[in-house]
C-alpha cells in the first residue's frame, strides 16, 4: 500500500545529494577533461589528452594491470579459503562454527589501519611467517613480502575474506541438504557431491562474492599503501600521489575516473548476477 503523503520526506536527502554529492562526483570527472596548468590548477579548454596519457603511458598502464592482477589473485585466494568455510558454517551449528562466524564480523569491522600494522610485522623478513617457514625447513633465505604482490595479496585476502564468506552464506543456506543426501545416498563421494551439487547451486553467490571482492581490491588504498608500498604503483596509490604529492589534479582525476568506471562496470555486473539469481529462486 503505497501512499503519496510520504513522498515529501525524501526531499531533504535528495536535495542534499543533488547539491553536494552529485556535483562532487561530476566535478572530478569534468576536471579529467581539462589540461593541467601547474600544481593544483587546470585550464579552461577541453581535452582528451589526460586519457591518452593515462591509457598510453607505461607507468599508468602497469599500475592498472597490477591493480587488476591483485584483484584476480585476491578473488582466487578469498574464494579458496572462503568457500569451504561458508559451507562449514552453513552445515554445522557447533559452537565453534558460530565462533568463526562471529570472528568474521569482528575481523571485517576491525580498523583497517591497525590490520595493516599487523601485516607489516607478520610479513617482515624476521616476522612469524618467515620464522615458521624456516623452522619447517621449507626455505633457507627469508621470503621478501614487502613491496610485491605476494605479501600484499595475503593481506588483501585477509581484508576481503569476510565479505566473500558473508556473500556466500545466504546462497549456501538456500541449498537444500536433501540434494546432498540424495547425491551421497546414490553413491557419490563427498568431493563429487560438492563438485556436482553444491558448487553449481552456489554459483550465483560465488559470482557475486567474486565481483564484490574484485571491486573492493582494485579500489583499496590503506592496505596497499602500508603493506605494498609506493613502488608497486597500483592505480589507487598513483591517484593519491597525483592528488596529494604532485598536485596534478588533471591526471589524478583522470585515473580516479578510470577506476570509478571499472568499479561501476563490476558493480553493474554484480547486480545483474544478483537479479538473475533472485529470479531463478
Amino acid at each position, binding site marked *: 500500500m*503505497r501512499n503519496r503523503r*510520504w*513522498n515529501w*520526506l*525524501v526531499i531533504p*536527502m535528495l536535495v542534499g*545529494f543533488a547539491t*553536494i*554529492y552529485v556535483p*562532487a562526483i561530476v566535478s*572530478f570527472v569534468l*576536471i579529467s577533461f581539462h589540461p593541467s596548468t601547474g600544481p*593544483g590548477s587546470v585550464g579552461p579548454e577541453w581535452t582528451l589528452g589526460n586519457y591518452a596519457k593515462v591509457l598510453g603511458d607505461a607507468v599508468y598502464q602497469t599500475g592498472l594491470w597490477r591493480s587488476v592482477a591483485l584483484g584476480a589473485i585476491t578473488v582466487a585466494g578469498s574464494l579458496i579459503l572462503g568457500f*569451504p*568455510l561458508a*559451507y*562449514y*558454517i*552453513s*552445515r*554445522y*551449528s557447533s559452537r565453534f*562454527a558460530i565462533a*568463526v562466524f*562471529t*570472528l*568474521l*564480523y569482528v*575481523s*571485517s*569491522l*576491525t*580498523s*583497517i*589501519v*591497525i590490520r595493516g*600494522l*599487523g*601485516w*607489516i610485522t*607478520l610479513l617482515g623478513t*624476521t616476522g*612469524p611467517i618467515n*620464522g615458521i617457514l624456516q623452522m619447517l625447513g621449507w626455505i633457507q633465505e627469508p621470503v621478501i613480502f614487502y613491496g610485491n604482490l605476494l605479501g600484499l595479496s595475503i593481506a588483501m585476502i*585477509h581484508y576481503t575474506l569476510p565479505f566473500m564468506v558473508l556473500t556466500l552464506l545466504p546462497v549456501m543456506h538456500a541449498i537444500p*541438504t536433501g540434494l546432498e*543426501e540424495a547425491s*551421497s*545416498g546414490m*553413491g557419490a563421494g*563427498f568431493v563429487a557431491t560438492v563438485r556436482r551439487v553444491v558448487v553449481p547451486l552456489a554459483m550465483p553467490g560465488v559470482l557475486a562474492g567474486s565481483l564484490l571482492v574484485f571491486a*573492493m581490491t582494485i579500489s*583499496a588504498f*590503506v592496505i596497499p*599503501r602500508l603493506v605494498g608500498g609506493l613502488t608497486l604503483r597500483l592505480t589507487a596509490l598513483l591517484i*593519491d600521489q597525483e592528488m*596529494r604529492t604532485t598536485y596534478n589534479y588533471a591526471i589524478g582525476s583522470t585515473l*580516479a575516473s578510470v*577506476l*570509478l568506471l571499472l568499479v561501476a562496470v563490476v558493480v553493474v555486473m554484480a547486480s545483474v548476477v544478483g537479479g538473475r539469481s533472485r529470479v531463478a529462486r
Partner: protein
Amino acid sequence: MAIPASSASAPTASVAGHVPAARRRRRLDMVRPVLTGWALLVAVFLLAPLIIVFIDSIGVEQYVVFPPGGWSLHWYQVIPKYYLDGAILSVGLAVAAVAAATVFAVPAGMAIARGSLPGRAAIDALLRSPVQIPLLISGVAFLQFYVLIRTLTGVTVTDSFVGLWIAHTIVVSPYLLTAVVARLARYPASLDEAAYGLGAGPVRTFFDITLPIISPAVASGLFFAFLVSFDNVPTTVFLIQSGKTTLPLAIFYDTDQDLSRIQYAVGTIVTVVFTTLILVAMRWLRLLPSSASARRGGG
C-alpha cells in the same frame, strides 16, 4: 540457522541401498574434521594480525623487531597527546556524521519504502550509491568539489571540520537508508495508515508508530555507520592537509614515516575497545548489518 550435522548422515530410505551404510558414515565422519580443521586454519589467519599488534605493542625495543627481545608496557605510557586529540576528533566527527545521516536518511527511507515516488528505483539507487563508490574516489570527489567552491566563491571548506562532516555524512548515509528500507519492507504499511486515518498527523504517526518499529534497524545502521566513519582513512586523507588529524589518519601517517611501538600500543587499545563494542552489539543488542552489499566499508 545451520543444519545439525546428524541430518547429513540420514539419507532417505529409497536411495540408501546403493552404498553400505558403514562406508557412507565413515566418509561423512571424515568430512567434518577436515572442514573443522579448515575453519580453524582460517580463524588463526583472521586473528593473526590482531594478536601480532598486541605482541608488538609490549616489546622493549623502540624499533619494531620481531620477536621482541623483552617485554615492556612503556609504550602505553608515552603515547603522544595528538593521538588522544585524534581520538576525540574521530569520535566527534563520527557522531556528527551519523547524527546528520540519521536526520536525512531515516525520513528518506520512509518515503522510499512507503511513498509512491515517481522514479523510485532511480532515487533509491542514487541515495544508496555512496556505499558502492570507493572511499578513495569519494575523497578525490570532495577534494575537487571543495577546490572548485574555493575557486568560485573564495570559501575554504578543505581542512575544516564542516568539510569533513559533509563528506562523512554522505558516505555513511546509505547504511541508515538501507536499514530503514529493509525493516519497513517487513512490516505492514496499514499500521501507519491506520494511525493516519485515526487523525494522527504524519509527524505523530512517525514518532508514535513507525519509529518504535524501525528503531532496532536504525540502531544497527547507526552502529555500523559509526564504525565506517571512525575508521575512514581513504576519504579523510584528501580532506585534511594540515593541522589536526583523525586517529586512524595519525596512525597511518606515523606508520608511513616513523614506525614505532607507540602505534602498536594505540592500535591495541583501539582494537580492544572496538572488539568489545562489536561483541556487545552482536550478542546483546543483536545488531547485524542488513545485507552484504551494505557492509562495504574499510578502504
